[in-house]
């Protein structure tokens, strides 16, 4: 089987798995990194949202062969290590607003929120309701109203 090397949460790893296996399953089933969740497998629900080189993506829709040695993958488990302190400001905002209910979608929500805020800030703007409307992540517990508050609170500290 082919070998694939890339960086996950700051650590260089090599896995032996077929080229077309989607990265979500390499993370979860091969590497045991369980933060990214399965909710659809077709890049719709966004429960697996993670970062590649600091930007949001969905590993359920990326064959492992498309990830190169220099690519840095960050999952929810590695998010806090990308900033000083114990937690990322977005995680702190999530705690402050007590966003989660069952919690299944929330790793993906937080990763999506961080990337969205970075994108908006890079455009030199503050986050708006229109920006929040673009978040596609499904929360079947319906925590959307608190997600909106938390993203704004997290953005203010990023």
């Amino acid at each position, binding site marked *: 089987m082919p070998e694939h090397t890339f960086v996950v949460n700051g650590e260089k790893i090599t896995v032996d798995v077929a080229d077309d296996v989607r990265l979500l399953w390499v993370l979860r089933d091969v590497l045991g990194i369980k933060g990214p969740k399965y909710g659809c497998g077709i890049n719709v629900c966004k429960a697996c949202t993670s970062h590649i080189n600091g930007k949001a993506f969905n590993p359920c829709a990326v064959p492992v062969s498309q990830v190169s040695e220099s690519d840095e993958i960050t999952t929810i488990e590695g998010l806090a290590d990308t900033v000083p302190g114990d937690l990322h400001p977005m995680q702190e905002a999530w705690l402050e607003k007590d966003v989660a209910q069952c919690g299944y979608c929330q790793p993906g929500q937080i990763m999506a929120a961080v990337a969205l805020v970075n994108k908006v800030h890079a455009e030199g703007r503050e986050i708006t309701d229109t920006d929040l409307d673009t978040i596609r992540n*499904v929360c079947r517990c319906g925590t959307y109203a608190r997600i909106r508050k938390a993203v704004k609170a997290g953005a203010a500290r990023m």
Partner: protein
Amino acid sequence: MTSEPLHSVQPSARRGTTRRGFIGYLIAGTTLAVAVDLNLDAPAHAAVPSPPQIPEAYDLNDLLTDAARPTAQLVTVEIREDGHAYFEIPRAEVGQGITTSTAMILAEELDLPVRHVHVSLAPARPELIWNQLTGGSNTTVSTMTPVRVAAAIAKGALLQAAAIELGSVVTLLRSKNGVIEAPDGSSRTYGELSVKAASSTTVEVEADVKLKASSEFKVIGTPTKRVDAMDIVTGRKKFAMDYDVPGALPTMICRAPTLNGTPKAIRNKAEVEAMPGVTDVAMIDTGIAVRARTFGQCIDGIRALEVDWNAGSVDGEDDASVLANLRKAEIPLAVPKIPLLAKTIDMDFEFMFRSSAALEPNCAVADVRSDRAEIWAGLKIPIVTQGRIAEAVGLPQTKVKVNVVESGGSFGHKLFGDGAIEAAKASKAFGKPVRLMWHRADEPRQGRLRPMATSRIRATHLAGQVLTFEQRHTSVSTDWRHGFGEMLTATAVSLPPGLGNLGVSETIFTLSTELPYDFGVVTQLLNETDQRFNTSAMRNPYSADVRTANELVVDAIAKAMGKDPLDLRLEFLKDDRTRKVLKKVAELGNWGRSMPAGTAQGIAIHKEYKGATACLVEIDCRPETVNRKIRDAVTGPRVTKATLVVDAGLVVNPTGLKAQMMGGFSDGLAMTLTSSCHLEDGHFLEASWDNYFYTREWNIPPEFEVVVMPSDSEQPGGAGEAGVAVSCAAIACAYARATGKMPKRFPINHDDPIGFDVKEFVPPVPASPTNGLDYVY
């Protein structure tokens, strides 16, 4: 510690203080463990008066509480050497927050910080019989007193041990934050006392327990964040598919192209078994199980399988034929004897199939051996699932261990153990452990649904009074075979008169359906038909649809009488509690403010789960909003503002209650405007979250507020389902007022052209995309 009765302080005369004698047990061990009967709080219900409606005196929550009563089984609170309290609750945490609220209840009575109380989920305990059922928003209603008593007895034992240790007397000791202090300043921690207070034998104690009065509460009623929040935001919280059971490889099922179709033969088993990563392929009753190194390779295996299928349960049928079938089963509206001049309002509503699937699909880990089995799954009624698994794999129930793990949502979906039973069958077929998960496409297509229903209402009015209000609700059968049915039969003798000859569904309907208005002669009847679908009691069963129909008719009555919808409701509501939440929501939501054409407010109330709720929404149905474009999304009318007010009696955690109201609102929004399953040619078309349009961020009102009413009630109300029906009804009323048209069918977009490309049925699951890097942001 001896077996002498525990006596702490003299009875207090303070108002509100509860002092009662309870039987508890000191459980043998090296540290303190106190057990109580989970059914110890069984106050006799008042005789049911000649009821206008049964739920006013005896509702579904009373039934659930009563059903638990005959089992004399114990739950145990332990204080360990770390000074922390430990409790296994025989209920399921599915996101509704019971691990947090139960930790708060224990912390209150024990004088411990909430973070030092650890609540975990008990595995299936068959001896509990009906008392391990999470549903009907009943957990806190049924467990609060036993949990408080156990904690109070434990604290009494700690105080007695401390009195001996510190050379003092119990009445002079003070407990705070896990430390007991004597007047001279000397102290012992609960950790130190846990060993001294332990009993070497298990003994019954008759405890004269003083539960804290609500005026003394420091934890109960204080907004508290979830105990698992840190694990959630760091990705550490474990769901069933995150458990690492040795050898339990990913497994998925290849399902039939039509609803409930079954497999006949596999044509290319060897070919699929030879695919990369695939370890096993086997036929089970629901399809072909494929086990592989990764779930991705299971999907590839399913897509490669060639299978001959038997017919499904509704081959060739569609929404229209199922609806026609329902129409035939409708019970006629009676022709009421009313004065000649009375006016009649006749209305007829239709509610389409809606999926109760959670974001975490049906899933379970199963390790079935020849002599025993072990299961890990999110289950609300694990004892019934344990029995079904035992039957399916040919083992005695005592040889099947069922671990209840935290669920990624339920909404009624996890009342049944569909995934767990299937996992057990696959594990048995392979002779190997499995980690079985449904594909998303399986959920709306083959998973459980809120049944299609019609609701017809005839109301008559004369001279400003409503004389009669008749409702006939007709539904595809709701599946109650997860244990509720058996429980009802067992509880039947204690049910109020008038329920005797009803079936299970009709009993649940009668116990949960209440029209809280003085509308003269009120009759509400259910008839169910058609058992060919996979249904469940999806969050707030019956009421979500029944109350939508009710409140639309209430608005129609107001219009016919020339009255304001708020004024009419205030005039006819039976009870002050509901009237108060309605007044509050009208004030906070600024009822009656001037709105542009194409937009409107809607207001509604609901009374269930020992509480009262009111909702006021504003909706925008103008073309520029309805037709706004978002990729692969349903937009449509947008609720721009929502205010909910809830009186849930004694509230343990206002933060959690507000969260549940918010979730209930999101569900109501979806069910009223956007989310349904379309049956066509024997199968449901939806196969993704971009087909089944549950509420998304672009549907959510930018302004959203929940207010919890203060209450001096000692009775906790239910939270999990309390926000659904009232939201459905308010949104429907707002839509009708904004568009000037009375909606007939829900969700209102159901008859729009299908807004997605229907995914193929063979193979039954879509390929995973490979273009994910094109969408990086």
